[in-house]
């Protein structure tokens, strides 16, 4: 039965009416009208619905909304602010460096999988600012891309890593 639940998404609190077992994804898409996390499999197999929960990449399609009570959810839309807060930047950039790198590399094809790609890559670079190619491949392997853009995603992550550590992109 639907109940009122308060969740924190992109640094704001929201009261939503949903049954406790409703996957977070449906709340984010239908109640908050966010367009980052999106349905891909509903089975935690593809990464289409990924969000950060307390900074950890999480599949919102299998996470009941009640499970994120008291935690902080960040979606694709909130990544620039999340990044700015972590890096203690005075101004929030328009895009997270990973997003910018995806543009610079023209990595995207259909782009549907890029929510997950960007969320996961942001998590990776927060934990490991200078990953090797092998580390990138291992970290990203739970995220599928049916259009086959993996090689450019790897390049973009490398580029973002450089940009974030102050090196020339």
């Amino acid at each position: 039965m639907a109940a009122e639940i308060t969740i924190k998404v992109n640094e704001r609190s929201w009261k939503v009416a949903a049954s406790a077992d409703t996957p977070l994804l449906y709340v984010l898409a239908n109640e908050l009208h966010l367009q980052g996390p999106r349905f891909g499999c509903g089975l935690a197999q593809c990464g289409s619905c990924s969000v950060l929960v307390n900074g950890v990449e999480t599949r919102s399609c299998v996470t009941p909304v009640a499970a994120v009570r008291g935690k902080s959810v960040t979606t694709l839309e909130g990544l620039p602010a999340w990044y700015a807060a972590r890096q203690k930047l005075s101004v929030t950039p328009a895009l997270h460096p990973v997003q910018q790198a995806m543009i610079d590399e023209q990595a995207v094809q259909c782009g549907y999988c890029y929510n997950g790609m960007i969320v996961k890559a942001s998590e990776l670079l927060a934990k490991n600012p200078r990953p090797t190619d092998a580390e990138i491949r291992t970290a990203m392997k739970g995220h599928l891309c049916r259009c086959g853009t993996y090689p450019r995603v790897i390049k973009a992550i490398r580029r973002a890593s450089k940009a974030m550590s102050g090196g020339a992109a």
Partner: protein
Amino acid sequence: MNFPRREFLKAGGALIVGFNLSEALFGQSHLDPVSRPPVPGPPDAKMVDTWLAIHADNTATIFIGFAELGQGNSTALLQVAAEELDMDMSRLKTVRLDTSITPNQGGTYSSASIQRGGPQVRTAAAEARLALLQMASKKLDAPIEGLTVSNGVVSAGNGKSVTYGELTGDRPLHIPFTGKAPLKPFTQYKVVGTGVPRNDIPDKVAGKYVYMQHVRVPDMLHVRVVRPRGQRAYGAGAKVVSIDESSIRGIPGARVLRRNDFIGVAAENEWDAVHAARQLKVTWETPPALPGNRGMHDAMRASKTTDRVVLEKGNAAAAMVGAAHVVSQSYRGPYQMHGPFGPNCAIADVKPDSALVICSTQDVYGTRTGIARILGLAVDKVRVQYYEGSGTYGHSCYDDVAQSAAILSQLAGKPVRLQFMRWDEHGWDNYGPAHVGEIRAAVDAAGRIVAYEYDGWQHNWSLVETAEQLALNRAPAAWPGAAAQGVSANHLGGIYYVPNLRLINHQVPGGDWFKGGWLRSPLDLSLAFASEQTIDELARLSGIDSYEFRRRNIVNERWLGVLDAAAKASNWKPRVAGSNISKSRIVTGRGIGLGTHLASYGGAVAEIEVNRETGQVVAKHMYGAIDAGLAVNPAFIENQIGGQLVQTASRMFKEEVTFNETGVTSLDWNSYPILRFDECPEVTAVVVQRLDQRSSGAGEEVMAAAAGAIANAFFDATGVRMREYPLTPKRVLAALRG
């Protein structure tokens, strides 16, 4: 039309976010707003105004009839228009496909948006430019010959100038599309042929791009289809024995919608609809038994087929006799699926006398015809609008989902949003059909191919979608015509000079098998797997390097161009295939291949690694070259080549639709694995630019070449020929053990 969330974000704090659908209107993106009133389509293709509009602020809207599928064509076609109009790209925009707005250019098939669409857009733009120059000549009181245009500003020798926008002031041009206006010679191209960045990427990475899956309309219900998990034989469909409606009684507002064997559920809340679809108890009739994957190829090979001679010249059988070397082999390819990353989704609002359907079809006009037929409405009472979903790679479930949504909206009497679940999309796809190929080819003592015979078995694509089959009891039917469904002379005999050739297509009855559809580079991977391995085998028997052997037998310059480009990119060193096999646990090999789908030319090299103990094969580096004539935007083609190489690796190593006696068992990404990051090859893309040649497709043309290259690399590494793909560890170990 704002998303309510924008206001909430501004307001901040804790707010109750309920459903306020009257505010949650169509999503928007860089494609909106539409700049002209809708008409019952298609708009008149013989008027230039159908194709473009010049606005008072000196910008222009180009109305393009092709779907953006993530390949960049919405940008590339604007490049074509910008070039002819002499306007900067920043002044041009396009709109979404809509049967009431955009012209009918045929579907976005066969990688043809640039091939077919380029000339139409180019000609319309040239025609508009000529009309604008005539207007300017009057206005500036200067002869037309002396006028020059730069970024939409027309200047005369007398120092006066005027903008396109001032000339038209938002009024239509009212001129016919004659196709006679002079076109700019390619030597003067400034925008075409350059790597302008894609206009959709910034929104896509920021989460601002509105995919089909994001669209909501006021007052809609969420619906789901209820079908057996995994399709049965196409001819068997799915027959309902009984439904227990009480099984979903506990779910708030959920109800069953039914028309014959077509079943859906509806609820106001999406999760309730998902729940109801899972929980609804339906008893289905037991379908006739299928042979399962193991028996499939033999059963197809043995079925009663409709045979057709695709091409015959000389006398292949006679030429085999006494040839220096003859190769005779049989090859097999699996069913493979489109598997769009986001399952298809559609919104339908069906009223008694009209319907609006929003979906991700590759062909808004084709989809409209089917929906009108199913709803019993006149075609011009149905409006179909396109929103991009995730990449579709051919005829995935987009028609099925659109038709299903229309049926469910009609039943519910309300607008509905239908999202296919992962198992709906995987289980009820129009798969790329499985294939059996038998090939015989011969070479003379000088290493020249003298004879070639190919017999291919597969069924056609299916014509009637599942929605229509179940709801209207329509008999399944095979897609007529379309050469791409069968043995193709483009590969077999089109690439190499072969004096004696015989190609036979054996069409297997489709009703006994699964639904078929065009899957990116239809059938070509299977054809190349057989044919390019045979070419390699002939090379080896002749003691000639695989690249050199192809050069010797190649049929024309353009094939030679991509062959050389791929070989050069990979730094190919001459060596007979399989002549350097190591004994170690992990062995490496390289292979080369050529192939196409329809009109363009593809060449590829693959470098792979085989683990003899585990049977695991990975591509380390793949090189692909495409000659697609005039490359309007070479950067997009490079990206397309990269995607094709990775997808080919996925299809050659992993992808295979599995089924048991009842039906399909590939229902998610675990039961239908695809290539992942850790197995992904490096890719090198080469675009062979031909400014003086007509543009042709570039979205699928290197896949066959890459499939051949991978198979040949496997032989080079192991000395063993694979007769069936995908090259899964199990299959590889069995082959290595002999």
